[in-house]
């Protein structure tokens, strides 16, 4: 793999730190421009806004790809009195997530924002439903506030990239927080008007703010103990600057903070609300990027920094993770709202990730990092499908009669099948390796973990895997199978098809050749766990 | 030779009286008088420092001049606001109810 990287390095131009400018500046510029333009009395047309945003995201994605290959390091003194550096330092842990953010960012900006529309009353059963006229093909139209919407998307991407790139704890936190407000605007202003979008937005804000204040607390504690905010320094010291009890406290604060973001059972209740409300692109970004900030934070700020504290909490964390798997999968069996259902399945998948992290072995961490990226792609795919369906159906309630997807919208149907199969851990698609790796790691955790407990967790996780298939079967049977053709809905439009293909190919690629990703993360994992 | 403690005591006294004046008065202009006393205390503090502890540095004295000037500007604006207030309300009583909305019930009603 290093050979491949060398080859790639020879291919890309040697821009050094300018890659960062390419990756970050378009987002910042586009956001500022759209925010300004959105306030003008004569608003620009939706095409201009959409294309500007898409171009910015694409250019940024190219920049991110360059960063991923070239991996330049930037170190600038930022707040000298506090010893805080503006340092960007991508490594094996962050590169996959950076690429994920870039890809998902392009997808999210490409999707059209659907205007608020009246809810169509869908008859409960076939007799009452008049054959309705086909809904016009879903295309972007002039939605009020479109420019602000795209600016928010750009800001979310910018914040996420910054957090993943940061080599300094404070910079990480800045990125972590930067995402918050634009996301809140996306939910509260552009969310589904038929649901309680203020409530969902407040939930999101409340939970993430509580989480990030705990994270800030932990960061400050470690920073005062070590006298530095450099993550490399933190990892190198490995918690030697803190005593056992303070390690426990710091680990608890950080873990709870990140667990709220991930989310880990029992702090997960906000996610289904938010997902059910957020616009499609918001859901995509939330699932694929924002939740990753939580797991990334765990791996970056907890595992290497306060190893002793993490070891002490690991069994509890793993237990909560597997409880979340089974819990969320069970709820999926009875959930009526398709979008909420997908959100629940996200919780289950992140349970596997948390289990892998908690196992404390290389295999577990590798599986967790793999599962992290895989979940990002899969949930993005699923939310593109389900968001489109929700718009077409006028609601995501499964109890209304819908036309069978396989009959009326083969493209969306196929994407749904692929997404659900991947999410239920079908080998050959990306979801499998993370899940099986986590179970493998949980069965033989690192020697300082109670292995009896962890074996129990592995069994529960395996049961959760079977439950995932159960709800997959349920979903496919309710929306994919069947013979109903009415009410007819239009199939995926070009942007959706392209986005679905892109994500589908990536899911398949990671599933068939998992070594691509594992070899990127392997050096980092070795560095963390082998001392 | 002078004991700086004396001006400092006067500073503390003036500041306390100013605070009392701000809090104990209802008439807005009288409240403003309390504010003037506080400003006077600040000026005296600066001058004392300038004359006894600054080692001949002109900075504190200049600062006092600035404070006096700014205070004058402030008084002008404040009195204008008072006039506007008077015209809107008919009185300048600071002890009156702030507004006559019904209490409670409209803050944070959203769940």
């Amino acid at each position, binding site marked *: 793999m290093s050979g491949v990287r060398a080859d790639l390095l020879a291919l890309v131009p040697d821009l050094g730190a300018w890659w960062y400018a390419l990756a970050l500046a378009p987002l910042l510029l586009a956001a500022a421009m759209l925010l300004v333009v959105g306030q003008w009395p004569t608003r620009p047309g939706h095409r201009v806004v959409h294309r500007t945003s898409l171009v910015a995201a694409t250019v940024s994605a190219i920049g991110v790809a360059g960063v991923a290959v070239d991996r330049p390091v930037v170190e600038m003194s930022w707040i000298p009195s506090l010893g805080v550096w503006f340092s960007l330092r991508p490594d094996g842990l962050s590169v996959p997530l950076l690429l994920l953010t870039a890809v998902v960012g392009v997808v999210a900006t490409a999707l059209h924002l659907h205007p608020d529309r009246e809810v169509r009353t869908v008859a409960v059963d076939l007799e009452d439903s008049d054959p309705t006229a086909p809904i016009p093909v879903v295309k972007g139209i002039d939605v009020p506030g479109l420019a602000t919407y795209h600016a928010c998307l750009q800001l979310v991407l910018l914040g996420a990239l910054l957090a993943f790139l940061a080599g300094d704890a404070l910079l990480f936190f800045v990125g972590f927080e930067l995402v918050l407000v634009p996301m809140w605007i996306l939910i509260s202003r552009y969310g589904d008007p038929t649901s309680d979008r203020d409530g969902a937005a407040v939930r999101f804000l409340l939970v993430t703010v509580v989480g990030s204040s705990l994270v800030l607390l932990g960061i400050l504690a470690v920073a005062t103990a070590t006298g530095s905010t450099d993550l490399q320094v933190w990892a190198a010291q490995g918690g030697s600057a803190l005593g056992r009890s303070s390690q426990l406290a710091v680990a608890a604060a950080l873990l709870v903070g990140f667990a709220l973001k991930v989310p880990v059972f029992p702090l997960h209740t906000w996610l289904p609300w938010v997902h059910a409300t957020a616009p499609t692109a918001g859901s995509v970004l939330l699932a694929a990027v924002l939740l990753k900030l939580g797991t990334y934070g765990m791996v970056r700020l907890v595992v290497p920094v306060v190893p002793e504290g993490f070891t002490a909490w690991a069994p509890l964390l793993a237990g909560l993770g597997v409880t979340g798997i089974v819990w969320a999968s*069970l709820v999926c069996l009875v959930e009526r709202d398709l979008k909420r259902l997908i959100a629940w399945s996200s919780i289950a998948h992140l349970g596997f990730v948390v289990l892998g992290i908690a196992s404390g072995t290389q295999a577990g961490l*590798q599986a967790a990092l793999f599962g992290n990226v895989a979940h990002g792609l899969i949930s993005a795919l699923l939310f593109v499908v389900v968001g489109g369906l929700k718009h077409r159906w006028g609601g995501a309630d499964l109890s209304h009669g819908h036309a069978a997807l396989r009959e009326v919208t083969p493209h969306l149907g196929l994407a749904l099948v692929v997404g659900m199969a991947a999410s239920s851990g079908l080998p050959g698609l990306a979801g499998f390796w993370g899940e099986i790796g986590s179970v493998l790691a949980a069965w033989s955790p690192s020697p300082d973990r109670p292995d009896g407990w962890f074996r129990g967790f592995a069994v529960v996780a395996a049961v959760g895997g079977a439950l995932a298939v159960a709800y997959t079967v349920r979903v496919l049977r309710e929306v994919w199978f069947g013979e109903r053709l009415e009410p007819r809905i239009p199939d995926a439009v070009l942007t959706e098809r392209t986005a679905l293909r892109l994500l589908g190919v990536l899911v398949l690629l990671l599933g068939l050749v998992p070594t691509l990703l594992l070899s990127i993360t392997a050096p980092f994992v070795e560095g963390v766990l082998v001392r | 030779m002078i004991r700086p403690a004396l001006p400092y005591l006067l500073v503390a006294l003036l500041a306390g009286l100013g605070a009392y004046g701000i809090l104990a008065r209802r008439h807005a202009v009288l409240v403003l008088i309390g504010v003037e006393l506080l400003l006077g205390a600040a000026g005296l503090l600066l001058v004392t420092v300038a004359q006894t502890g600054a080692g001949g540095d002109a900075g504190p004295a200049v600062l006092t001049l600035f404070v006096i000037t700014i205070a004058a500007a402030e008084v002008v604006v404040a009195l204008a606001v008072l006039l506007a207030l008077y015209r809107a309300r008919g009185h300048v009583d600071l002890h009156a109810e702030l507004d006559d909305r019904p209490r409670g019930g409209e803050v944070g009603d959203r769940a």
Partner: protein
Amino acid sequence: MPDLPDLDWSDLQLPDVPLPDLPMLDLWGGPAHWAILATLLAALAGLGLTGRSNRLGAWVGVGGALTAVVATLWQLYTLTQIRGSERELGTIGGLALGELEAPLRLLVSWPTALVAVTVAAVALVVQGYARWYLWYDPRYRPFAATVSLFTAAMLLVVHSDDLLLTLVGWEVMGWCSYLLIGHQSTRSAAARAAGKALLVTRTADIGFVLGIVALATGAGTTRTTEVVAHWSDVGASPTLTTALCLLVVGVAGKSALFPFQDWLPDAMEGPTPASALIHAATMVAAGTVVLAQLFDLLVLSGTARTLLAVLACVTMIGAAVLAFAQADLKRLLAWSTVSQVALMLAVLAAATTVTGPDAALQHLVAHAWFKALLFLTTGWLGVLVGGTAMAVVTSGARRYRVLRHRFGWGLLALAGVPPFVGFFSKELILGTAEAGSAGAGGMASVLVLASVGASAPLTAAYCMRAWLVLNRPTAIQGHAAAYHPGPVDRIDDFFDEPQIVQEAEGVERAEAAISSSARMGTSFLMLMTVLGGLVLLLPVWGPQVHLDLQLTLATLLLMAVSALLVRLAAGGVRTRDAAARIPAAASLAAERGLYADTAYRALVATPVLALARAVAWFDDQVLDAWVRGAGVGARLLGRVGDLTSPRRATPALALVLAGVVVLAGIGVMVP
């Protein structure tokens, strides 16, 4: 009975034939790679690249299967050129999992290579057949692609030398079966059967996954040969027993052993080519392949063997009995598959290190030939007469002479009558079980021997029943001929688009006509039910068994008696259906699989759903409370502050200033 001498199997085996030296081509990868990749790529291309052209889809599907056949045949030849007759291959490179080695390698040996050829050949026949069978199906292309994927997965399992790769193929097959069974997705019965198949097998797979995980982590590697070596060194241990029992549970799910048996007959909702593929060579047989790979561990654990033997024997006998009572020819064949697969697994439970597991694989190969033949022929008949219920297919083999031999040979092979392939494999099984019960096999072997002995006449009985019904003389001989004059039509231009043939022949004729390649495929299978015996006699199969001729004769005798009894029972019935003698209640229960479906629902589905509702309620009402509580609490606090805060300026200012003074005081006091 005179005392007959035992016969050594090796005496019957064919001599080594010197093969000509073919040039070994220096190509990328090994034949196993090509076989797996060709089918995999055919699947991907079939889904993504064929556009709207059925013809292209058919070429891709058939081409993939054909490449796989050629590659596996070439692999057979290369094995003769390799010392030790084993060949190792890498795949995508090892997974970087730190402490755990996961090299993801393939291993080819003689038995697996032969199984691979069988799988590829059956897949090829099925692909050709499906092109005809689903001629008018708008979803032919996804079907062909799924069949390709299915084949790739099975080939992967067969060749795998890595537990993870085995699991990959294993799960992919489960999903492919889901898609194939649910192919006619507009029918709710198909949707239900598909979901049931996936759920039941995946539930059992919990055991499979955990078993694999336990074995792999214990050995520190996922490579099968090293896992086997590690645990063989360790010897019998509780962990090993647990892991193997879990594996057996997983295998029981995929191979439809009791108590997971009920998904397989329901899977008849899928199109016939899919049934043929699932039953003959792929999914249900995968368990046999996996356990054969782990055979050296299985013999170490008496508990796991006994568990496997009990499950297999119950299933073997029960399924054979149920097969006899089915009112649908396809369901009869399905239950017979359940019984036959249980037979394969029973051998694995009965075998010892002396005999080795090869008898199971030999039966797998034999079963693949005749079961594929029977299914495809039944599907053919189904198209001709419009259904596969017993009442509909009555006299089918008489009305369509072309089917007569196909059915006849297939049923004879299934019953195990010499010289058909089923006879040889069944003899091997008997021999293995006997050797086990006489040797170190213990209880499990005795149980298996008894069950195999009992199942042979039962198998003969339902084969006889089916044959009697199919071969009933028609009341009016000319009736069928009037409806479908002459022998069955043939479509020679196989890859023509349907519309052309329709115009030429008319829709009815076109539907009834079979394509030459489908016909050729079944002919090939028919041939193999006879010649397959020769495959089983190849000198490459593993350790030897002795044949007890007395046992053989006794079995044959029992079979003859039971067949005779069935003939007698069928005597007075108009349709010549011996099962008509069974009481209606029993017959109904048998058709419903002894209400196993109801039991699944009552024992698993209902409690799980109830639990799910409880969980959802608890989540909404209790866990979410802290979020809601935060909102309510903040509002209450705000209201309290609102009430207590002064509504006048001066007191408020007093509070503020007092606060400032206090703060300043603190600042002064604490320097």
